[in-house]
């Protein structure tokens, strides 16, 4: 599904489409299973909130915020220029890349093929017991939260992640 169609589905949920466009997108949602799934997911996410969009107040003025962004961009540009003006240094590192890379690959291979058992331990804290019996394989699974959105609550000093999984945790 194209990005434009996805954005149109979001606009449909937000009630931002013209009557004509709304009919088209509703037809798409009925006909296309992928569009239907996205519509359901977005509706569920919006439905979980009291209001469809959270108001986030910047802790500083808009001008000051953008001046910081601008300063950071300029700083990165300057760094890039400095790096480009030193071709000798880059060439020297490039020559070392192949042997260092090969050695690193050997070290990594040596590390990975070491036999390792599960990390098992038990820790007591007050009345609660927390068991630790986790294999590295599970913990290192790089898994993002695909159907989720994240927001930061400045005043509460909290990061909130809404996971749209409908899992049963009780």
């Amino acid at each position: 599904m194209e990005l434009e169609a996805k954005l149109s589905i979001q606009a449909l949920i937000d009630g931002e489409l013209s009557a004509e466009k709304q009919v088209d997108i509703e037809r798409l949602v009925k006909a296309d299973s992928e569009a239907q799934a996205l519509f359901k997911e977005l509706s569920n996410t919006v439905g979980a909130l009291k209001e469809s969009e959270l108001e986030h107040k910047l802790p500083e003025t808009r001008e000051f915020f953008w001046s910081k962004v601008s300063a950071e961009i300029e700083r990165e540009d300057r760094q890039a220029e400095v790096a480009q003006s030193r071709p000798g240094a880059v060439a020297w590192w490039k020559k070392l890349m192949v042997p260092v890379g090969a050695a690193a690959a050997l070290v990594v291979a040596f590390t990975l093929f070491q036999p390792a058992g599960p990390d098992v331990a038990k820790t007591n804290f007050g009345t609660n017991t927390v068991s630790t019996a986790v294999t590295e394989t599970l913990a290192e699974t790089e898994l993002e939260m695909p159907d989720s959105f994240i927001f930061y609550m400045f005043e509460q000093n909290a990061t909130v992640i809404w996971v749209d999984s409908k899992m049963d945790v009780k």
Partner: protein
Amino acid sequence: MTHSRTIRFFLFAVALGVFLPAERMLAGDPPKGSEVHFHAQLVWGTNDDPAKHPKFREVDSASRKILDPFKWKHFLVTENKNFSLNPGEQKKVKMSDKCTIIAKHKGKAAKGKGEVISVTLLGDGKPIGKHTKSIVEKHTIALCGSLKNGTAWAVLLKRVPEKQK
């Protein structure tokens, strides 16, 4: 024959001398940073009258503010767990029969940003997702979602000072 064996032995010794320290340097050093302490809560979001569920108490006011954007009227604590992590350490914390988190201390974050922690959420034993973040003391990571019956769940993972452990 003897000469060849000597050369092979020499090469083997050189390889050991190079790769073993390198391997230790890469894999053996635990991440830096200090021990972090957490208070974890499993919370149930519902519009039911809390009086119907006397086993559970409402979340405290600070946690209530975190959950305030969500539409449910009441958030009841169903489980509390305290645990701590040393640098490089990970723990599997069972919050309910069906909800478990795996928290891992990934070392010190950039200056002033505390420690980097990854949290993997398991539902019914299956990984649902993983979030990695640098957190300072008193920061809370709230993982939330809806349940099939129209209510909601949340795992609140708050970094607490050692004395509150």
